[in-house]
């Protein structure tokens, strides 16, 4: 991608798009990692033939800007509350596939209680964390997921522990909790990461479909706008910051304990 691309209308450029994507133009910034993540979610729903039985609950943030584009029965939940809303839905419709899609501001800041309690209850839902370490929707301020050294509009010289405290590594915490069936971390900053993300999403969905309980996939996404970086430099910056801090792959899998760590390198 060149700098001139950043001026063009953002479009999903894949040769084919999932049937459940209602429009190929989208309102997110060039270089954003959310569209490909959302595309992978739709593809997974289609491949597992979950049409006509899927309900999505969306948090507030950039991913919510895509909700008009997705052919999914859904609720735009209150900020941070998606796991609670999804719990009410799933308890009344246990035969449906129920997922949440939330950013780090939504899940780790506003909704920390909701995600932790849903996980501890072993609620049979799948939560997707699209983590770029900033409040992208409001222009790139620090979240509770911003890693040390990461730039945001409220940490222009990078987050430092003395001034801003430490980030919460949510997936690592959840991976140690009873009640959690599956946790994985991945990234969409390169082709291998996209391919791995697809496989991990499928695995997480299967946990719910088998009734195994709570599953979560954390997907690291680029936010060049919030990071004050060129769109083309987003994947590299992600690797130096959020990606540098992260372990990728399966962090917990109670169905297949040997899987944990196995997907980490490819």
């Amino acid at each position: 991608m060149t700098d001139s691309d950043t001026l063009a209308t953002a479009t999903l450029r894949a040769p084919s798009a999932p049937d459940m994507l209602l429009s190929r133009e989208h309102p997110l910034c060039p270089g954003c990692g959310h569209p490909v993540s959302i595309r992978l979610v739709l593809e997974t729903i289609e491949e597992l033939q979950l049409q006509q039985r899927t309900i999505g609950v969306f948090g507030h943030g950039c991913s919510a800007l895509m909700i008009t584009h997705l052919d999914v029965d859904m609720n735009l939940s209150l900020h941070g509350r998606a796991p609670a809303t999804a719990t009410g839905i799933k308890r009344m419709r246990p035969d449906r596939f129920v997922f949440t899609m939330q950013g780090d501001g939504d899940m780790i800041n506003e909704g920390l209680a909701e995600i932790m309690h849903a996980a501890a209850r072993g609620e049979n839902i799948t939560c997707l964390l699209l983590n770029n370490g900033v409040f992208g929707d409001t222009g790139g301020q620090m979240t509770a997921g911003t890693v040390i050294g990461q730039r945001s509009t409220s940490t222009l010289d990078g987050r430092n522990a003395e001034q801003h405290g430490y980030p919460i590594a949510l997936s690592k915490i959840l991976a140690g909790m009873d009640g959690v069936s599956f946790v994985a971390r991945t990234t969409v900053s390169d082709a291998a990461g996209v391919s791995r993300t697809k496989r991990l999403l499928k695995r997480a969905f299967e946990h719910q479909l088998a009734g195994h309980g709570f599953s979560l996939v954390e997907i690291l996404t680029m936010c060049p706008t919030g990071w004050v970086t060129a769109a083309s430099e987003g994947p590299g910056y992600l690797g130096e910051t959020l990606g540098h801090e992260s372990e990728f792959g399966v962090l917990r899998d109670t169905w297949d304990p040997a899987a944990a760590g196995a997907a980490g390198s490819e």
Partner: protein
Amino acid sequence: MSTVTKPTKSLCSGSEAIARSAMAAGLRFYAGYPMAPSTDILETFTRELAHADGVCINVETEIEGVNMALGAAMTGFRAATGSTGQGVALMQEAIAEAGLHETPLVVFTVGRMQQDYFQSTRGGGWGDYRTICMAPKDVPEAVELTQLLFHLTDKYRVPGILLTDGILARTQVSVDLSPIEFEPLPEKTWALDGAGTGTGHSKSYWTFAGGKANNPGLGPQTHWVNLAEKFEVIARNEPRWEEVHTEGAETLIVAFGTAAAFVEHVVRDLNAEGVRVGMFRPITLWPFPGDQLEAAAESAKAIGVFELNAGQMIDDVKLNVPNRKLVRPIGGISVDDSGINIGELLDAPAVRARIELLIEEMTQ
């Protein structure tokens, strides 16, 4: 609203009666967080809702409880949450959400005195929303209004609050808990059930009514104007109230909930003694029966508002009577040392003394 006495069937507390009446109305989901004096409702559902093919969750926070109930209600099943005023304070954001994306959410508020009138009738969420609020005077009426509230919140797709207090919640009464018949309601075609996913006709539930790229919604401007018009319809059609000896009354007492039961007792005694005093009782606190109060206050030379708070409903009374200068607060804050239980003002002799003082001042 009549409180026709039907053949009594079971002795239970007000809390048990409300929970069982909700189950008779078809409630299938309850999420609650313990706080006195609302805890007995949660415990009743904990024991009994699973036997009624339902789910009760003892939630980790009130905020999660109300959002779970919101999710459950979105699927078309009858759902509720509840707490005391302090807990419902935490739920305001989600109650507003229910109003703005048209989800029939029911909340049982069991207050400690009557300090939750503002919270229940105004609310603390964002946006132009309203909440139907019903305040029964006793347990049999609570049974009836619980079922009516589920009916009306479904009919209009709005949030609703049943506002009671610790006295009503703990009073043991024999009540009839059979389902009450209401007019039939249309099928819930709006229910979120996942069946639309991948069909090109998926549903979207959000306060801006944005719809989908292939099927745009009304958008916030039109949606919010429509909602405001719906709330006006409810304000016209759904006020409920009770009048006791209001015709020709020179003194009118306005009271709600349990306090009104005490006022009613005193008003009947005074009339038997030849004192021309009446009582007007709003049963729905929103919509407030303002036109009806205006008519009932026509002959009054003094209007006393007896409520167990520093003066909340009195604002609505002043807005609606012909002459607001005749309105006096005759209740007040009355609580025991625990801060949880209603204090000594809620006693027939104390209520009578307040009313007699008002009459005395009026004749001076």
